[in-house]
């Protein structure tokens, strides 16, 4: 393919306007079709079984979160019990391909339905001791959210959640000294 293009474009490549146009088009595409992470996003149908991690289907451009919402709508139409493990897996796939909004919505949905691995994931996503902005949909950690999910898990008897809560409390003690409002609120919640 490149062989076919090269000859006809060689003169154009010498023109600076060509490169400027290319950059502008690239920026436009980036703005309109970029994912949460900035990778060009495309979508397949939620129920599609042909998707593999990192595959980009350029025929279906959808806003962040739409694929997850479609999947949620579909499973709700099919009724309970919801296929929570496979939805959680799907969330992982979205996570890996950089579709963080879709991933977040599916984690949230499955956690809300009581799927424990998803509850742990929701806790970790917001945990200030684990937070990495480059891998998160959210701009900042949210200790209160994190505590909420860990607490639910601990109440279900998950000992791992107790340890996470302890670490969160240790963080809160330190952060409250410098006046972090979330840390102060967390200390109030865990009094």
């Amino acid at each position, binding site marked *: 393919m490149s062989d076919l293009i090269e000859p006809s474009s060689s003169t154009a490549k010498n023109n600076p306007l060509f490169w400027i146009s290319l950059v502008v088009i690239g920026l436009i595409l980036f703005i309109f079709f970029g994912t949460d992470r900035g990778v060009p996003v495309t979508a397949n149908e939620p129920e599609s079984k042909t998707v593999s991690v990192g595959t980009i289907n350029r025929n279906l451009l959808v806003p*962040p979160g739409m694929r997850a919402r479609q999947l949620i709508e579909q499973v*709700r139409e099919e009724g309970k019990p919801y296929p929570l493990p496979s939805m959680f897996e799907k969330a992982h796939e979205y996570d890996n391909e950089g579709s963080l909004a879709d991933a977040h*919505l599916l984690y949230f949905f499955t956690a809300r339905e009581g799927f424990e691995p998803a509850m742990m994931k929701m806790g970790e996503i917001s945990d200030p001791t684990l937070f990495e902005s480059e891998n998160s949909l959210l701009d900042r950690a949210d200790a209160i959210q994190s505590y909420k999910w860990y607490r639910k898990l601990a109440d279900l008897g998950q000992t791992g959640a107790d340890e996470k809560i302890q670490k969160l409390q240790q963080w809160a003690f330190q952060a409250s000294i410098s006046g972090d409002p979330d840390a102060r609120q967390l200390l*109030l919640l865990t009094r």
Partner: protein
Amino acid sequence: MKRIILKVLAGFAIFMVVGLHADELKPLLMEGKKTLYQRVLSTPDARIYEETSRTSASQEVVPFSVLYVYEKQAGWIKVGYDSFGKTVGWVPEKQAIVWNQALTVSFKDPQDIQRVMLFYNKKSLKDLVDNFDKVAYQELYEAAVSGEPLENSPVIAIQPEAHLEIRDNFYLVPIKQHEDVYLGNEQARLLEIASVPLDDDSASDDLSRSTQKARSYRSGIHFVIDSTASMGPYIDRTREAVRKVFSAIDKQDLTNQVSFGMTAYRDNLDQVPELEYLTRQYVSLSEGTDVDQFFEGVNNLSPATISSRDFREDAYAGIKSAIEDSDWDNFDARYVILITDAGPRESHDSLGTTRLSAQALRQLAYDKGVSLWVLHLRTPSIIADHEKAEGLYKALSYYPGIGDFYYGVRLGQVDEFGTVLETLANQITQQVLATTNGVPPIPLPETNANDEAGTQLSQLQDRVAKLGNALRMRYLHRESGKPLPRVFDAWMVDRDFINPERSSVDVRVLLTRDQLSDLKNVMQQVLELAEEGVLSPKNFINDLKSLAATVSRDPSSVAGSTSGAGSNLAEMGYMREYIEDLPYTGEVMNLTLESWEEWSAKTQIEFMQRLDSKINYYQALHDHTDLWVTPGGGAVNGNSVFPVALDLLP
């Protein structure tokens, strides 16, 4: 026949209920409101009279108490501490601050930010703000901090150096008016507040005038000490501490103005007769003015040689004896300091002799004007129940409007115990000295703020410095020959003048527990819809409109207001009356259906999490009953209040 009788009975019951409610006295409503009652704050000199006459019987009221207005009559207000219909008497209108909006200020720690200056009038402050004149402000600030204000300075007072955390120490600095302004590029508010003056240490004009009266001011400190087997080191250290305080008293020429008493207690003799006594007074307050007499008495005190039955002792018996068997009449300030390493025997404890609860014993002390302090030696012991004891001692030493006077000595360290005891006893002595010199404030000894023990002690001392619910401002404007005002109005700005991006205070609204509960319930329902709306957006708008009809205070107005997509939640009927006129509208109330639909999933999720966080906060506040203050004292109820920061409102 049965049916007829049942109907008649049911009708009678309905009639009774309606009748009772019709008769129930309610406070006066604020103008234009359907559920908000008129409220006032009592000034420091306020008294509650039985009738609308200053010659009628009267009682003192804690400064800046929140009072509901039930009736107004020729310069008098009939008031009650709650809205349930129980009135307590009449207050002259001049002794009350109208405070319908219930806005108050909480100060930031002055270690992190410049102290807030208070100005005589709005114009002088507004001129500075409009011109953003940092140089002029700094000049005024430095002069105010030094305690020597510039000539014709517009500064009337400055925030005190000591910091009180409002969550631990409830106080009110009522806002009477507010005005939005810009300070540099930041939006700020000018606030008119009412405050109570704290005299400047350096002011000495009135010393001689007040000395005569203050000479008679006397403090009585009665120690109640656990004298069971484990207490030997602490009894010795108490003796040493009192000896040092006596020495300080002597140097400051305060002999006869501070007196010490001591009562020892053990436990129920029916179980262990070898304990010899349940309570025994070793020195009375009248004897304890003299150092020799004091030590003659306490040198006979020694710990028991036999152990009592369990890890609780009958501390309440010792305190009750100190309150009832001491002659407090000659003392203006009255303190009972309990020293123990064990928990008390509560009213339900079969071995307790007083049958009093912590609250009942506290009331006994309160009625006698006695302040109870507890030094709890948290000695390492596997059978000790220090947590439970702490709760009971905090309840016992709680003083309305100030907080508890409990100090837990970590691991029962004798050195720490001695330091704390000396500091507190010295502080009381300093209070006597200050009063003698006509200077009300209590000097705060330096403590290491990073040290846990230091912080705890400092907090305890701060509580002593507070006047009722009023946080006193260091008063700078003294006019020779004129007494300090009981209360004064002043203007301040809510942002740090030098770094306006930082706020210098939090503006708060005093919500009742019922109001917070209502707010939490409504927001919880909104959150549930928002969670659904994030996952399946198509029904969100209609669901929100349906919910509005059920939570609105005025459902008839909801249908009209929700027709436009531009309506925000406040207009849809979610706004609550108790927050609608505040100088703040949160993002939840401002949310329009249009903007929700336009938002990305990420923005919706972030919104939802912020709302969730606020609801969690409301729930935590609601559940921590120790944070709530009940006007007039008593158990926490729906009228108990807490100052909620405006930016935590929905």
